[in-house]
């Protein structure tokens, strides 16, 4: 069975968050099962983020969850070794902008790629993409630096 992460889980930090919450869900589920076995009233199911809920649902594919299944999910998530691309911009993108960028990376480069968003005001604008082996700098600062000769010429002519 090839498990595919939901589109909303696109970054390493989100995976960490999902792993943490899935662990909590496992603890709750185990306790709830014990309570049910002994006929006691189980604690209320804690609320989880949408990413965690979507991940668990995708993992069980509509089947009933089990302790072994949840443990398997946690182990699977911990064992993931997916390519990560760090996208640095001058400001933090909003939800739709992130979705656009993640969709673009997964569609154009690697469907399993994780995207980590980083903010650096010094870029001025544009984007800087760091892949495992390279840095692709398309920021405005880099453009200005690359065009320093033109800048020097302009300054000289002033």
């Amino acid at each position: 069975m090839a498990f595919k992460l939901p589109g909303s889980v696109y970054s390493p930090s989100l995976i960490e968050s999902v792993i943490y919450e899935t662990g909590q869900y496992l603890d709750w589920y185990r306790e709830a099962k014990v309570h049910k076995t002994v006929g006691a009233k189980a604690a209320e199911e804690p609320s989880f983020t949408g990413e965690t809920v979507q991940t668990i649902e995708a993992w069980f594919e509509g089947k009933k969850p089990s302790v072994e299944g949840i443990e398997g999910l946690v182990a699977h998530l911990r064992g993931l070794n997916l390519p990560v691309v760090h996208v640095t911009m001058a400001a933090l993108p909003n939800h739709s902008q992130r979705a656009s960028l993640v969709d673009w990376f997964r569609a154009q480069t690697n469907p399993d790629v994780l995207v980590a968003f980083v903010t650096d005001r010094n870029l001025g604008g544009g984007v800087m993409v760091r892949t495992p082996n390279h840095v692709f700098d398309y920021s405005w600062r880099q453009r200005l630096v690359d065009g320093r000769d033109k800048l020097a010429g302009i300054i000289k002519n002033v």
Partner: protein
Amino acid sequence: MNLVIYILAGVIGILAILTLVQSWQLSRVKGRLAKLLLQPKPISVSEPTAAELEARLKTAYEAKIVEATATFGEDLKGTSTRLSEQVSRLTTSVIEEELDSYQKTLEEVRHTAVEAMDKIRTAVEQQRVELRQGMEADLAAERAKLSAKFDTKMGDIVASYIAESLGGGVDLGAQMQFIMASLEAHKDEIKKDLTSGV
């Protein structure tokens, strides 16, 4: 037979005796002759004869001395003249040769010195030109380096200033088109790294 032998013996004896006698006489004569030779017998000459002989001898001796002196004088004069000529000739020739040699040596030394001076002058001039060219090249390189450094620094300063100024009012919504276009333009490079870098 015996008689003949006796006669012959007698004759031999007589001959022997005669031989002995003659030998004795011969030895005596030799002794006298030796004595005579050892002791020359003085010649006795009369006084007038001796005076005359002495006068003649003196005259002849003086004449011979005068003659020898004249001859010697003439020889000496000739020899002296020839010797002077020879010395003069030799001296002149030697001096001329030495002077020629000295002049040649001087000429060679002067020629060598001139050549050396020319070489030194050429080398100095070449070195001066090279030094000047090197200094000019170094100066130009240093000027270009400083200019480039200044431009770089100035570019960095201006770029940082602009980026810093823009950073305060970033509108990603307005930039998204540019960002997506940039990613789209380089998607092959990014994809290549993401597919091969894991």
